[in-house]
């Protein structure tokens, strides 16, 4: 089964996107397969609402393993099945917590195995007035590496928030010749385009 891996910094909304996209494709209950960095696998079945409150939090590094759902996309007269994989947030340097470090290593390793990589940004944060750091080094390196490994595209998330348009512009002017999709995991804005794009790739 083809894997579409969502990567990005902590708190850009990777898990929220996974859940929202599953809902957008019509799921009410989801089965999340969790693969921890020490190699064990288990699966959890949840109602979507419960999964939101359990998995999506405003603090960074909530996700510390690969969690994936199997999704069906209508293609032609049939369906194409693929695995959408959510991963641990990436930071520039070395994290002090070994658990998070292992999760980051697992995420980087997963890039080589994915057929599609969706690189996610928090467009609202990038565009907010008080934020001066711009696009960080890890995102630039991720872009350079991931586009060699897989079909690569960018998700500019949190488009429902103010300032996100500016962030989107910054992303588009930094990364050339790759598709950039403005989306909101909250309002499902832009999901139609992502769905169409992903069904072509997986």
């Amino acid at each position, binding site marked *: 089964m083809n894997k579409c891996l969502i990567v990005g910094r902590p708190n850009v909304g990777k898990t929220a996107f996974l859940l929202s996209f599953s809902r957008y494709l019509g799921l009410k209950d989801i089965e999340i397969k969790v693969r921890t960095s020490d190699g064990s696998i288990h699966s959890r079945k949840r109602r979507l609402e419960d999964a939101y409150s359990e998995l999506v939090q405003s603090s960074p590094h909530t996700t510390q393993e690969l969690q994936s759902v199997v999704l069906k996309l209508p293609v032609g007269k049939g369906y194409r099945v693929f695995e959408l994989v959510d991963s641990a947030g990436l930071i520039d340097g070395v*994290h002090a917590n070994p658990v998070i470090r292992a999760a980051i290593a697992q995420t980087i390793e997963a890039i080589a195995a994915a057929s599609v990589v969706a690189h996610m940004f928090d467009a609202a944060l990038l565009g907010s007035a008080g934020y001066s750091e711009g696009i960080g080094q890890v995102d630039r390196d991720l872009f350079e590496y991931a586009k*060699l490994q897989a079909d690569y595209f960018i998700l500019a998330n949190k488009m429902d928030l103010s300032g996100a348009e500016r962030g989107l512009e910054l992303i588009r002017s930094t990364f050339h010749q790759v598709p950039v999709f403005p989306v909101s995991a909250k309002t499902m804005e832009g999901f139609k385009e992502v769905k169409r794009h992903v069904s072509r790739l997986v």
Partner: protein
Amino acid sequence: MRPAYTNSRQIYQELAKGNLGTVEALHALRLLQANGSVSTLPASAGDPTGKPNNALEELNKLIGLEAVKKLVEEIQAFVQIRRYRQEYGLKAEPLVLHMIFKGNPGTGKTTVARILGALFKELGVLSKGHLIEVERADLVGEYIGHTAQRTREQVKKALGGILFIDEAYSLARGGEKDFGKEAIDTLVKAMEDHKDELILILAGYRREMEKFVQSNPGLSSRFPIILEFPDYNLTELMEIAKLMVKEREYRLSEAAEKCLYNLLKNQVDNYDENRGNARLVRNLVERSIRRQAVRLTRAGQFDRNSLTVLTEADILAAAEGAE
């Protein structure tokens, strides 16, 4: 100076240990890739761009079939030497490689035919080396003239490869007026017309094949290679099962192995019509793997070990489902 990494596994480990930051790790990975070094994908992942599989090696991996292996080696040597003789301007025997395979179902006839296709491609005898498997129903038509047309269609599909006719004697089944005769005639003509781009293999039960060849005197001279596929014995069947299990990254528990042995022994001892049939062993193994999956899903709990072990219960459940 940062150490140079020779594979990506090292980089992942250093990243997890905290000796590398994410940015540095991504740099190192890109560098590694730019230098074109080996990927860390397991070999089993299969590399379609890699060097061609050695067909002979694949054949030698098969359990048993010693006579077949020996004959194939002879054919390979003959083909090679014939080419060198041609280069030196010596007389070269015409290369007639049509064959007759005799043996019970599940004794490896189709598998060997497929490997031969690949081997002849490697040797440059066949351009494609693919296998087209047909039986009477694919060749024989419904009205006069239809059979020749259908047979020619199959021959056309097989050009550059091997046309494998299973239960070939069924073509001679219906007597003089049967359309099967027409199929045979068309095949014989195709063998002449396309002698450099087609290999024909007739396969089926030993006794029936022998009768078939005897009753069609033109055939034996056109099929100079005759391979006999004996039934597998108990030891070989067990080896086959273990190899299949291992190739799929499973293993048999001790009790499961004993249980499988008894099941197979029972078949062999009772002259079951399926004794010595490797296909049934494969089906049994594959069904056990599915039973294991059901068992694990029901238990809802598993680790690396339990994911690989096939237990006695899996084997028994699989055997029960087979009857």
